[in-house]
Protein backbone atom coordinates (compact mmCIF):
# COMPACT_ATOMS: atom_id res chain seq x y z
CA UNK A 1 0.00 0.00 0.00
CA UNK A 2 2.83 2.39 0.85
CA UNK A 3 4.23 1.82 -2.63
CA UNK A 4 0.93 2.83 -4.21
CA UNK A 5 0.80 5.97 -2.07
CA UNK A 6 4.29 6.99 -3.10
CA UNK A 7 3.80 6.43 -6.82
CA UNK A 8 2.88 9.34 -9.09
CA UNK A 9 -0.69 9.78 -10.35
CA UNK A 10 -0.22 8.01 -13.65
CA UNK A 11 1.37 5.00 -11.98
CA UNK A 12 -1.54 4.83 -9.55
CA UNK A 13 -3.88 4.71 -12.53
CA UNK A 14 -1.86 1.96 -14.22
CA UNK A 15 -1.66 0.05 -10.97
CA UNK A 16 -5.40 0.41 -10.36
CA UNK A 17 -6.13 -0.95 -13.83
CA UNK A 18 -3.74 -3.88 -13.52
CA UNK A 19 -6.50 -6.00 -11.98
CA UNK A 20 -9.03 -7.63 -14.34
CA UNK A 21 -12.00 -7.10 -12.01
CA UNK A 22 -11.17 -3.41 -11.63
CA UNK A 23 -10.80 -3.05 -15.41
CA UNK A 24 -14.18 -4.68 -15.82
CA UNK A 25 -15.71 -2.40 -13.19
CA UNK A 26 -14.35 0.63 -15.03
CA UNK A 27 -15.74 -0.48 -18.36
CA UNK A 28 -19.15 -1.06 -16.78
CA UNK A 29 -19.06 2.34 -15.10
CA UNK A 30 -18.32 3.89 -18.47
CA UNK A 31 -21.91 3.00 -19.36
CA UNK A 32 -23.62 4.33 -16.23
CA UNK A 33 -23.11 5.02 -12.52
CA UNK A 34 -23.75 2.02 -10.28
CA UNK A 35 -23.99 1.16 -6.60
CA UNK A 36 -21.52 -1.14 -4.86
CA UNK A 37 -24.13 -3.91 -4.77
CA UNK A 38 -24.83 -3.52 -8.47
CA UNK A 39 -21.13 -3.65 -9.20
CA UNK A 40 -20.64 -6.74 -7.05
CA UNK A 41 -23.44 -8.70 -8.69
CA UNK A 42 -21.65 -10.37 -11.64
CA UNK A 43 -18.54 -11.36 -9.68
CA UNK A 44 -18.10 -14.31 -7.37
CA UNK A 45 -16.61 -12.09 -4.69
CA UNK A 46 -18.02 -10.42 -1.59
CA UNK A 47 -19.31 -6.86 -1.49
CA UNK A 48 -16.41 -6.15 0.86
CA UNK A 49 -13.94 -7.27 -1.79
CA UNK A 50 -15.63 -5.02 -4.33
CA UNK A 51 -15.42 -2.14 -1.85
CA UNK A 52 -11.69 -2.74 -1.59
CA UNK A 53 -11.32 -2.61 -5.36
CA UNK A 54 -13.33 0.61 -5.38
CA UNK A 55 -11.00 2.16 -2.80
CA UNK A 56 -8.06 1.49 -5.15
CA UNK A 57 -9.94 3.03 -8.09
CA UNK A 58 -10.89 6.02 -5.91
CA UNK A 59 -7.29 6.43 -4.76
CA UNK A 60 -6.21 6.63 -8.39
CA UNK A 61 -8.83 9.29 -9.06
CA UNK A 62 -10.60 7.04 -11.53
CA UNK A 63 -13.93 6.93 -9.72
CA UNK A 64 -15.77 8.99 -7.13
CA UNK A 65 -18.70 8.27 -4.79
CA UNK A 66 -21.54 10.72 -4.61
CA UNK A 67 -22.69 12.05 -1.24
CA UNK A 68 -26.14 10.57 -1.78
CA UNK A 69 -26.32 8.78 1.58
CA UNK A 70 -28.72 6.07 0.52
CA UNK A 71 -27.18 4.68 -2.65
CA UNK A 72 -23.81 6.41 -2.94
CA UNK A 73 -23.50 5.48 -6.63
CA UNK A 74 -20.02 5.12 -8.05
CA UNK A 75 -19.14 7.50 -10.86
CA UNK A 76 -16.37 7.13 -13.41
CA UNK A 77 -14.09 10.17 -13.63
CA UNK A 78 -13.85 10.19 -17.38
CA UNK A 79 -11.23 12.95 -17.56
CA UNK A 80 -8.59 10.98 -15.70
CA UNK A 81 -9.41 7.87 -17.64
CA UNK A 82 -9.28 9.71 -20.98
CA UNK A 83 -5.94 11.29 -20.21
CA UNK A 84 -4.33 7.97 -19.43
CA UNK A 85 -5.93 6.19 -22.37
CA UNK A 86 -4.85 9.03 -24.62
CA UNK A 87 -1.25 8.79 -23.49
CA UNK A 88 -1.03 5.07 -23.96
CA UNK A 89 -2.91 5.18 -27.25
CA UNK A 90 -0.53 7.83 -28.56
CA UNK A 91 2.44 5.78 -27.58
CA UNK A 92 0.90 2.71 -29.17
CA UNK A 93 0.07 4.51 -32.40
CA UNK A 94 3.59 5.81 -32.55
CA UNK A 95 4.96 2.28 -32.27
CA UNK A 96 2.37 0.93 -34.70
CA UNK A 97 3.24 3.62 -37.22
CA UNK A 98 6.90 2.69 -36.95
CA UNK A 99 6.20 -1.01 -37.35
CA UNK A 100 4.00 -0.45 -40.40
CA UNK A 101 7.01 1.15 -42.04
CA UNK A 102 8.99 -1.91 -40.98
CA UNK A 103 6.29 -4.13 -42.55
CA UNK A 104 6.75 -2.30 -45.85
CA UNK A 105 10.50 -2.56 -45.61
CA UNK A 106 10.41 -6.28 -44.81
CA UNK A 107 8.22 -6.86 -47.83
CA UNK A 108 10.67 -5.05 -50.08
CA UNK A 109 13.71 -6.88 -48.69
CA UNK A 110 14.99 -9.89 -50.59
CA UNK A 111 14.84 -13.24 -48.82
CA UNK A 112 18.36 -14.22 -49.76
CA UNK A 113 21.25 -12.48 -48.05
CA UNK A 114 22.32 -10.09 -50.77
CA UNK A 115 22.19 -7.03 -48.54
CA UNK A 116 25.20 -5.98 -46.53
CA UNK A 117 25.38 -7.84 -43.28
CA UNK A 118 27.37 -5.83 -40.76
CA UNK A 119 26.86 -8.21 -37.86
CA UNK A 120 28.06 -11.28 -39.71
CA UNK A 121 31.66 -10.10 -39.55
CA UNK A 122 32.28 -9.68 -35.84
CA UNK A 123 36.05 -9.75 -36.13
CA UNK A 124 36.57 -6.95 -38.64
CA UNK A 125 36.84 -4.26 -35.99
CA UNK A 126 35.21 -0.85 -35.91
CA UNK A 127 35.80 0.15 -39.54
CA UNK A 128 32.09 0.52 -40.26
Amino acid at each position, binding site marked *: MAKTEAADPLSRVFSALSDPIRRDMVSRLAGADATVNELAEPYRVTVQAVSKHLKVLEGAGLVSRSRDAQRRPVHLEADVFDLMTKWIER*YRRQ*AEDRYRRLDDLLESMSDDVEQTHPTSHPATGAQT
Partner: protein
Amino acid sequence: MTTTSTHETEITVDPDVPLVRITREFDAPPDKVFRAHTDPELVAQWLGPRRHEMRVDHYDCRTGGSYRYVHLSDGNEFGFYGCFHEVRASERIVQTFTFEGLPDGVALERLVFENLGNGRTRLTATSLVDTFEGRDAFVASGMEDGVREGYDRLDELLAG
Protein backbone atom coordinates in the same frame (compact mmCIF):
# COMPACT_ATOMS: atom_id res chain seq x y z
CA MET B 1 -8.70 -0.75 -25.07
CA THR B 2 -7.34 -4.16 -26.02
CA THR B 3 -6.64 -4.93 -29.65
CA THR B 4 -7.68 -8.14 -31.34
CA SER B 5 -5.81 -8.11 -34.64
CA THR B 6 -2.63 -10.18 -34.45
CA HIS B 7 -0.74 -7.45 -36.29
CA GLU B 8 -1.67 -4.47 -34.18
CA THR B 9 0.98 -3.26 -31.79
CA GLU B 10 0.22 -4.06 -28.16
CA ILE B 11 1.49 -1.98 -25.27
CA THR B 12 1.83 -3.23 -21.71
CA VAL B 13 2.59 -0.78 -18.93
CA ASP B 14 3.70 -2.67 -15.83
CA PRO B 15 2.24 -1.32 -12.57
CA ASP B 16 5.03 -2.70 -10.35
CA VAL B 17 8.19 -2.09 -12.38
CA PRO B 18 8.88 1.05 -14.45
CA LEU B 19 8.83 -0.67 -17.82
CA VAL B 20 6.89 -0.56 -21.05
CA ARG B 21 6.51 -3.61 -23.23
CA ILE B 22 5.63 -3.45 -26.93
CA THR B 23 4.59 -6.60 -28.78
CA ARG B 24 4.15 -6.86 -32.53
CA GLU B 25 4.09 -9.69 -35.09
CA PHE B 26 5.58 -9.56 -38.56
CA ASP B 27 5.07 -11.57 -41.75
CA ALA B 28 8.79 -12.19 -42.08
CA PRO B 29 11.21 -14.69 -40.53
CA PRO B 30 13.36 -13.66 -37.53
CA ASP B 31 16.59 -13.27 -39.53
CA LYS B 32 14.94 -10.72 -41.78
CA VAL B 33 13.34 -8.73 -38.94
CA PHE B 34 16.68 -8.87 -37.15
CA ARG B 35 18.51 -7.57 -40.23
CA ALA B 36 16.08 -4.63 -40.42
CA HIS B 37 17.22 -3.78 -36.87
CA THR B 38 20.97 -4.11 -37.40
CA ASP B 39 21.74 -2.74 -40.88
CA PRO B 40 21.91 1.07 -40.47
CA GLU B 41 20.65 1.69 -44.00
CA LEU B 42 17.58 -0.40 -43.29
CA VAL B 43 17.09 1.01 -39.77
CA ALA B 44 17.01 4.54 -41.19
CA GLN B 45 14.11 3.55 -43.43
CA TRP B 46 11.67 2.75 -40.66
CA LEU B 47 12.86 3.86 -37.22
CA GLY B 48 12.67 7.59 -37.90
CA PRO B 49 9.49 9.64 -38.18
CA ARG B 50 7.76 9.33 -41.55
CA ARG B 51 7.76 12.98 -42.56
CA HIS B 52 11.19 13.88 -41.24
CA GLU B 53 14.66 12.76 -41.93
CA MET B 54 16.57 10.37 -39.75
CA ARG B 55 20.32 10.83 -39.90
CA VAL B 56 22.44 7.98 -38.58
CA ASP B 57 25.77 9.14 -37.12
CA HIS B 58 26.93 5.61 -36.52
CA TYR B 59 25.16 2.35 -35.91
CA ASP B 60 27.58 -0.40 -34.95
CA CYS B 61 25.10 -3.08 -34.01
CA ARG B 62 27.22 -5.80 -32.42
CA THR B 63 27.97 -6.76 -28.84
CA GLY B 64 29.98 -3.89 -27.36
CA GLY B 65 29.13 -1.51 -30.21
CA SER B 66 27.29 1.80 -30.00
CA TYR B 67 24.94 4.03 -31.97
CA ARG B 68 23.85 7.60 -32.37
CA TYR B 69 21.18 8.97 -34.64
CA VAL B 70 19.31 12.23 -35.05
CA HIS B 71 15.71 12.93 -35.96
CA LEU B 72 15.41 16.15 -37.95
CA SER B 73 12.05 17.79 -37.40
CA ASP B 74 11.16 21.32 -38.58
CA GLY B 75 14.69 22.61 -38.11
CA ASN B 76 15.07 20.90 -34.75
CA GLU B 77 17.43 18.03 -34.09
CA PHE B 78 16.65 15.32 -31.60
CA GLY B 79 19.63 13.11 -30.86
CA PHE B 80 19.53 9.61 -29.41
CA TYR B 81 22.43 7.39 -28.44
CA GLY B 82 23.32 4.23 -26.60
CA CYS B 83 25.42 1.07 -26.45
CA PHE B 84 24.70 -2.41 -27.70
CA HIS B 85 25.13 -4.59 -24.65
CA GLU B 86 24.41 -7.86 -26.41
CA VAL B 87 23.56 -8.67 -30.02
CA ARG B 88 22.67 -12.29 -30.73
CA ALA B 89 21.86 -12.96 -34.37
CA SER B 90 18.13 -13.39 -35.08
CA GLU B 91 17.42 -13.80 -31.36
CA ARG B 92 17.91 -10.70 -29.27
CA ILE B 93 19.36 -7.23 -28.95
CA VAL B 94 20.00 -5.62 -25.56
CA GLN B 95 20.90 -1.94 -25.69
CA THR B 96 20.82 1.29 -23.74
CA PHE B 97 18.87 4.31 -24.98
CA THR B 98 19.25 7.97 -24.07
CA PHE B 99 17.47 11.00 -25.52
CA GLU B 100 20.02 13.81 -25.59
CA GLY B 101 17.35 16.28 -24.50
CA LEU B 102 17.16 14.36 -21.20
CA PRO B 103 20.78 13.29 -20.69
CA ASP B 104 20.21 12.01 -17.14
CA GLY B 105 17.70 9.46 -18.37
CA VAL B 106 18.66 6.07 -19.68
CA ALA B 107 16.48 3.14 -20.66
CA LEU B 108 17.59 -0.46 -20.90
CA GLU B 109 15.94 -1.98 -23.94
CA ARG B 110 15.59 -5.64 -24.78
CA LEU B 111 14.36 -6.80 -28.16
CA VAL B 112 13.44 -10.46 -28.47
CA PHE B 113 12.80 -12.00 -31.89
CA GLU B 114 10.59 -15.05 -31.51
CA ASN B 115 10.20 -17.49 -34.38
CA LEU B 116 6.49 -18.23 -34.87
CA GLY B 117 7.11 -20.55 -37.82
CA ASN B 118 5.64 -20.14 -41.30
CA GLY B 119 7.95 -17.20 -41.89
CA ARG B 120 6.52 -15.15 -39.03
CA THR B 121 8.13 -13.39 -36.10
CA ARG B 122 6.92 -11.96 -32.83
CA LEU B 123 8.97 -9.02 -31.64
CA THR B 124 8.84 -8.10 -27.96
CA ALA B 125 10.53 -4.82 -27.06
CA THR B 126 10.89 -4.03 -23.37
CA SER B 127 12.09 -0.65 -22.12
CA LEU B 128 13.09 -0.40 -18.48
CA VAL B 129 13.83 2.95 -16.84
CA ASP B 130 14.77 3.80 -13.26
CA THR B 131 11.72 5.71 -12.05
CA PHE B 132 7.97 5.60 -12.62
CA GLU B 133 8.08 9.31 -13.48
CA GLY B 134 10.68 8.51 -16.13
CA ARG B 135 8.60 5.70 -17.53
CA ASP B 136 5.48 7.84 -17.64
CA ALA B 137 7.38 10.65 -19.33
CA PHE B 138 8.55 8.06 -21.83
CA VAL B 139 4.98 7.01 -22.56
CA ALA B 140 3.77 10.61 -22.67
CA SER B 141 6.59 11.70 -24.96
CA GLY B 142 4.91 10.92 -28.31
CA MET B 143 5.32 14.48 -29.57
CA GLU B 144 9.08 14.75 -30.15
CA ASP B 145 9.06 11.95 -32.62
CA GLY B 146 6.98 13.95 -35.04
CA VAL B 147 4.56 11.10 -35.54
CA ARG B 148 1.58 13.38 -35.58
CA GLU B 149 -0.38 11.92 -38.46
CA GLY B 150 -2.60 9.77 -36.30
CA TYR B 151 -2.58 12.03 -33.25
CA ASP B 152 -4.29 14.95 -34.87
CA ARG B 153 -7.34 12.90 -35.57
CA LEU B 154 -7.28 11.51 -32.04
CA ASP B 155 -7.04 15.02 -30.61
CA GLU B 156 -10.04 16.13 -32.62
CA LEU B 157 -11.96 13.10 -31.47
CA LEU B 158 -11.10 13.65 -27.82
CA ALA B 159 -11.67 17.39 -27.98
CA GLY B 160 -15.21 16.63 -29.20
